[in-house]
């Protein structure tokens, strides 16, 4: 389990403990947080990695993935640090990948019981439509932070988008690699905390720009 952490000291301890109760190997990557996140991570039983300088979520995920692969991990999962995901959803996805049902499991918040804010839902639908056109891959929820990949898939999908455009980049990589993708219903807890910490709608324009630039100059 790779958990990217940036200024999440209030939530990250609980999230990591919940993950540790179900999974043996949890890797937390502190992405140059300026709060007490690093200390919070060190108190848990998770492997603690730290970026000296903030490099973005995509970069943190790739760092954690490199660490896990180097230690012989067979499957890699992404899990957000703010407590928006449910561990049970991840267990179901990890089991499916372990059984060989698919190479990559992606969370789909539209299939779960999430109470998605309408603006957020519209933006994600729009992003999904864009990916349908540009990569020909039909997914519902293209920017869900909950994912499980086989080690082979993780090796093939090296994230070069350091910031938030990595989710879109991953979709392209999946489409090109021809690996088997499956979507799983996930419930996202939209709490006041996760909404305040999460991406604002205006960020989507910036993500789109980073993604477009990344596609042109790889």
């Amino acid at each position, binding site marked *: 389990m790779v958990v990217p952490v940036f200024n999440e000291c209030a939530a990250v301890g609980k999230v990591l403990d919940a993950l540790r109760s179900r999974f043996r190997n949890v890797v937390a*990557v502190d992405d*140059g947080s300026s709060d007490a996140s690093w200390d919070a991570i060190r108190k848990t039983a998770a*492997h*603690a*990695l*730290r*970026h*000296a*300088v903030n*490099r*973005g979520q995509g*970069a943190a995920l*790739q*760092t954690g993935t*490199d*660490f896990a692969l*180097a230690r012989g991990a067979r499957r890699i999962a992404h899990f957000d640090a703010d407590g928006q995901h449910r561990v049970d959803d991840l267990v179901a996805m990890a089991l499916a990948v372990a059984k060989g049902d698919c190479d990559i499991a992606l969370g789909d918040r539209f299939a779960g019981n999430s109470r998605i804010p309408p603006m957020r839902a519209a933006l994600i639908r729009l992003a999904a439509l864009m990916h349908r056109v540009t990569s020909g891959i039909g997914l519902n929820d293209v920017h869900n932070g909950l994912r499980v990949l086989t080690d082979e898939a993780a090796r093939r999908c090296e994230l*070069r988008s*350091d910031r938030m455009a990595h989710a879109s980049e991953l979709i392209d990589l999946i489409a090109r690699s021809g690996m088997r993708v499956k979507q799983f219903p996930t419930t996202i807890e939209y709490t006041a905390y996760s909404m305040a910490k999460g991406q604002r709608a205006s960020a989507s324009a910036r993500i789109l720009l980073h993604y477009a*630039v990344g596609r042109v*100059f790889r």
Partner: protein
Amino acid sequence: MSVFQVVLLAALVATVVLGLVMASRGALPKILAGLLVGGACLGAVFVVEPDWTTQLARFLGIGRGADLVLYVLVLGTSWGFLSMYMRVRAVRRDMTLLVRRMALDEAERDQTPRRP
């Protein structure tokens, strides 16, 4: 010669000197220094003889000398911005790889004593 011309000329001469000094110290790549000095010399010529830009512009099918200067400026700065942006991107990429390497090395150090 007007005051304006004197000031501009002084600035351009300073640019030429700066370019030559930096190139001789190896602080500036030869090609860039050549571009800088050449551009400044050309600019100096046009400051002294403003009518020449108009003649050149006519020759190129552009109405006024000022328009020609504007077009060249726009193209030059666009190119400058783009190349600067590409360089920043490359630096950011290198920085990410460096930060990642550091994080992995630090984790390695942390864990070796605890789990031999």
